[in-house]
């Protein structure tokens, strides 16, 4: 299937993401911030689709937008918003924040422009993965007997999450 108006959609989605991202940190109301974040995440999922990575896009929707953000909202709603909004929300660290962000951005640009290795990370031209085989390729990459390289790392990551869950339960509940 030939893509339609790729640059237009790319700029649309990228713009949505950036506006959403800005809204996340500027809204006073936590629920509004969360919604802006959801918009950002969905736009990002769409970008993955444009990159011929439907599986990642699907996981992005199901995990981030559908799962994690629901839990976020769940927690936010339990707190009394009217009163929380009146509280001072921001620590006066925006100066440090800007400096850190600028430094990170500078680092990325420097690497991309000065070293040859940086350019290799972002190849020119369109990637040509078969869309219809994307999921299967990821599966092979993760689990295949011969070519699978990341199975151990994958399992370790899930174990890490399990530890985090148990830790959270232990910390939150005094008596189990």
């Amino acid at each position, binding site marked *: *299937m*030939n893509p*339609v108006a790729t640059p237009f959609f790319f700029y649309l989605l990228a713009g949505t993401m950036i506006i959403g991202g800005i809204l996340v940190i500027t809204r006073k*109301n936590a*629920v*509004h911030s969360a*919604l802006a974040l*959801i918009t950002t995440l969905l736009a990002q999922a769409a970008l993955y689709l444009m990159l011929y990575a*439907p*599986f990642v*896009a*699907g*996981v992005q*929707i*199901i995990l981030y*937008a*559908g*799962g994690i*953000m*629901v*839990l976020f*909202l*769940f927690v936010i*709603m*339990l707190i009394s918003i009217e009163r929380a909004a009146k509280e001072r929300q921001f620590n006066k660290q925006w100066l440090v924040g800007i400096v850190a962000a600028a430094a990170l951005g500078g680092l990325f640009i420097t690497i991309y422009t000065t070293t040859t290795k940086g350019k290799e990370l972002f190849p020119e031209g369109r990637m040509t993965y078969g*869309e*219809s*085989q*994307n*999921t*299967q390729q990821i*599966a*092979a990459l993760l689990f295949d*007997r011969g070519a699978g390289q990341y199975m151990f790392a994958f399992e370790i990551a899930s174990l890490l999450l399990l530890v985090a869950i148990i830790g959270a339960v232990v910390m939150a509940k005094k008596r189990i």
Partner: protein
Amino acid sequence: MHELIDYIQSYLDPRVTTTPGAAGNIFWATVYILLVFGGLSVAVIAMNWLERKILAHMQVRLGPMRVGPHGLLQPIADAIKLLLKEDIIPAEADAFIFWIAPFMVVLAAFTVFVVVPFGPTHAITDMNIGILFMLGVSSLSVLGIVMAGWASNSHYPLIGALRSSAQMVSYEVAMGLAVLSVILLTSLQGSGLGLYGIGATNPQAYGTLSMIGIVQAQQEQGVWFIFKFFPLGLVGFFIFAIAMVAETNRAPFDLPEAESELTAGFHTEYSGFRWSLFFLAEYSAMIAVSSIAVTLWLGGWLRPFPNALSGPTWDLVFSLIPGISFLLLAAMCFYNVARMPKHPLFKIQTMGLAGFGAVLGLIGLVMFIPAVRDRVNDVFWFAAKVAGFMYLYIWYRGTFPRYRFDQLMKVGWKILLPMGLALLILTAAMGMRTELWAQFQEVVHGL
């Protein structure tokens, strides 16, 4: 213009085997989008009438009888009433979120249908991640519900929304496990092949997430997945069938909208058009999850008894059933026309019913035309299976009391989740049983 005609001709060619979206055929994709969403709206309206009638007959009453013959026009009257009603936004509500929430729910419920396969070529598109897409997008509707509950700025909607989100997130887990077991089954292409091609001659026999691929896998394996590895397929189906009722907030899991506790749950403060959007979303979500169940376990568009009653003769017989069933409906209409009271006041009603019967009969007759018959057959079987689920939904509602919240959570986490995990492991073991058996014998020999 010329191109357009080409497009139409290209799709009418019986040799077409792919869905319009996957073929990149924008014209047909658009036509299908309109058809599917138009059909969906009609289905929701029909469900509204059917639910009221069926429930009424279960409860020794008649249901709507006034607007149109046997209340056939009642849903339309309801729709007009809802559209004309004042749209109230509470003063203390968060207006923007309150305004956008119902649209979000409807959007999520409708978008799901992009990948629903009504037939091998009757789908808007065939996605490589079909089932994942469906689960992901339908899980977005919970966001809309949470937003609606929070934005109303009132206690009942808030509690309703909290319950709803907790419930949906919990049941998604069990649902996902049941779905996973089916995806495992899809990799068993043909007989004698192991899971994911392990131990198979063709190591590339992967499973698939594509909705059409899942049905095709059932076709190839010659069995609906509900009967595969009996009773494992059945257990998976039951887990999904329970979880899907919870996902759609219907009785006996209708706690978020429990009338006697939370008045109307998350949509307590909504009225008029915006409320009707929630209604629309609820019913289309019911149809959506039912069609997932049909696709994954009940062979999607495949006709029943593909093995026992096979051969071209039986194919022909089964392809006649859609037309016959419409003719039966028409006959029922005419029977009731004959039973209508012979009173001048009922004249219009009688004529209306007769007209409705005539339309049904005409549709039935059109379905006997071979060209139509072949193309409609798939859609009919799919719709019939989904309709069975819809009837179950209504039946549940007429029979069961409501679960309490902690009991609901208990069912989700302590019963369905362990069952789903066990199912997944057992399905995998069954799929690789020759491999495992060989390894086991090796170990025994070694001893």
